[in-house]
């Protein structure tokens, strides 16, 4: 079996696994009592992650350079990033329902790459002179990872808005630490699995019970943390691009549409992070900004290419 056949096998496999994984997560969300589905979802995500990694590695071997030279490769890298961020977030938070939101994102991206792109856009092309640099790997991979994180984070913000529709909310978690205080008149029962039934009872028996996060809090904090991870990545990616541009043609910033949109994305998410610590902006407004950020990231990633000009217009990518 040659590399090309392996690639064709892997891209369809990745898509199929992600589709099944998404269904598994959704069934689990609908029927939480079916045993073992949560674990199956995690396995699905991990296998999809490895399949995409294998696909990109095969292309790396085939072309001889880091596989981020066209839209097809960058879409799969994006899907890989989404699965990787899902796995990390699921592991640190132990919340298996996370997959009901992240799996469709990863599935959608891989479907776009594997099914809707014409074959001519899937084959790898030789690099143009401007891209022949080690900076390519550094700049583009960090940018793509940040897009993955920001997409996942903003989709979670959209989920937060759906869950809390019609309610007023108070946020917990920001750089100022406005959260962490007890809410009056809310009797939430801890949903954690860390305590056994006995221990829970012992806690309930006492006058002061720890007030744990509810679903809206969880969604909000996950979204905040994942955006909080995507934001430094975006910053480092933009800076790497700037330094590269300065080394290559002597200007770290030239208001090229792509870099301008990366800046716009940065500004929107910076506004989101600041909105969380602003008194008059508490509640849902930060989440609205993050949801708007979802559209902005996609414009930055794909939309700008339709303008078809500037430094980043080589062959429809990045």
């Amino acid at each position, binding site marked *: 079996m040659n590399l090309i056949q392996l690639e064709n096998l892997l891209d369809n496999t990745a898509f199929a696994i992600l589709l099944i994984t998404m269904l598994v997560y959704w069934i689990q969300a609908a029927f939480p009592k079916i045993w073992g589905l949560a674990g199956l979802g995690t396995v699905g995500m991990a296998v999809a992650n490895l399949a995409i990694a294998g696909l990109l590695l095969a292309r790396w071997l085939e072309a001889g350079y880091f596989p981020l030279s066209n839209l097809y490769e960058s879409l799969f890298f994006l899907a890989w990033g989404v699965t990787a961020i899902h796995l990390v977030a699921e592991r640190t938070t132990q919340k298996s329902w996370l997959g009901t939101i992240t799996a469709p994102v990863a599935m959608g991206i891989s479907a776009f790459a594997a099914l809707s792109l014409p074959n001519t856009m899937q084959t790898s092309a030789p690099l143009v002179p401007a891209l022949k640099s080690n900076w390519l790997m550094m700049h583009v991979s960090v940018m793509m990872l940040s897009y993955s994180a920001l997409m996942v984070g903003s989709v979670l913000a959209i989920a937060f808005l759906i869950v809390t529709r019609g309610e007023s909310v108070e946020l917990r978690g920001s*750089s100022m630490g406005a959260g962490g205080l*007890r809410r009056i008149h809310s009797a939430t029962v801890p949903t954690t699995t860390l305590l056994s039934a006995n221990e829970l009872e*012992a806690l309930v028996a006492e006058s002061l019970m720890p007030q744990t*996060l509810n679903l809206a809090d969880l969604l909000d904090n996950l979204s*905040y943390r994942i955006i909080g*991870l995507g934001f430094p990545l975006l910053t480092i990616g933009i800076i790497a691009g700037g330094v590269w541009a300065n080394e290559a043609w002597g*200007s770290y910033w030239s208001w090229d549409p792509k870099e301008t949109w990366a800046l*716009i994305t940065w500004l929107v998410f910076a506004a989101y992070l600041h909105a969380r610590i602003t008194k008059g*902006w508490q509640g849902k407004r930060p989440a609205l900004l993050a949801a708007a950020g979802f559209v902005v990231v996609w414009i930055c990633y794909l939309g700008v290419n339709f303008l078809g000009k500037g430094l980043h217009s080589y062959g429809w990518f990045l």
Partner: protein
Amino acid sequence: MAQGYLFFKTTWIGAIGRFWKQELLAVLANLQLAIALLLGIAVASVAGTVIEQGKPAIYYQTNYPESPAVLGFLTWKVLLTLGLDHVYRTGWFLALLVLFGASLLACTSTRQLPMLRAAQRWSYYQQPKRFERLALSTKIVGGELGVVLPLLKKQGYRVFQADQAIYACKGVIGRVGPIVVHISMVFILLGAMVAALGGFSATEVVPSGDTFKVEHIDSAGHFAQGHIPNTWHGRVNRFWIDYTPEGAISQFYSDISLLDAQEQELTRKTIRVNQPLRYQGITFYQTNWSIAKVQVQVNNSPILEVPVQPMQTVEGERLWLAWVPIKADQSEGLALVMSDLQGTLLVYGDQEEALATMRKGMATDVQGVRLKLIDVIGATGLEIKFDPGVPIIYTGFGLLMVGVLMCYVSHAQIWAWQQDECLWIGGRANRAQITFEQEILRVLAELHRAAQSKSATQTQIALKTDA
């Protein structure tokens, strides 16, 4: 009189001071202003990518007519008055950036630094109501302070202990991060300002083998004149392009020498895209290329150097055209058309018919003459830059990367207090609520287990003594 003047002066300064502190600084440090600035700069940047920048006025007159106006208001007059044809260089956009910088500094001095100091000024909690305020707090009967300490240390906390109380924290660095980010942004804005005032950029298109001076200045700041080189000049020893087997461009190369007034070589380097030449703070980048001339021989003539004209097809493909006279009175000639430096060209006659394809070094008989193509000579497009802002901007970049990573760290604090038989414990974190909740619940579970086993042992001891 003098006293009165002094009085007047001090109140005047005092009033300005008060105004500065209470009014201006407060407004600048306002977070809503900061968000408005961030989004305002974003919207202006969007405008700059949607509206074509730097086109001649006629472009805007055709694309943004008086009626129907784009979006109902955006006529070419409005567009040009607002400077939307060069958004990023308009006064109001630069004013936004300056205001943004001022807001960053005001916020750092009036909010971030006091908050950092507040975060470092902790106290032990020794009252029930202080614990009751925290969401994640509880009271454990039979809990022991001694058990808490190693548990927290294991989780990576710095633990401070008083007589009957514990304070533990980790991730204070997460409170320093935003300050570093703000300062780094100020560095970047300053660097951009220095670059605009003290830097210059020039473009030179030089045929392979020719010398050049840095004289086609695209832009130069007020203080940049002294840095434009006038005591030395350059020579492009050779310019060439490598092609892939499929005919696509692989890489451009320019072998460049810098020479002093006596033609002595100061430095020499073969540059390519991503590999510039640097000399005395001035950098030469490979950015463009063109075809300068062709060398041909008609019958037994000496080698003729014919200049070429650049052209463009409707599809935007670049072509070059040379006209070679074949009669002494120049009434007839041949047109040579080429699209790259690979040494192949097409020969057209006066009736615009394609007559032959030629390669470098090859001779062909057309229109009754023997035409020999000796060489196609390329020209390199060099971008020459001097930017004194780079060190400042790179410092800003470095700080920004470090700062923004520090911002991910969550600052977590845990308090514990032994009140007789009861152990009060509670905590809060500023960013990672989920992880912190798991962490503290794990600690609480351990404490419960310890308290239960202790009471079990006590019961056993009690039973034993009874027996």
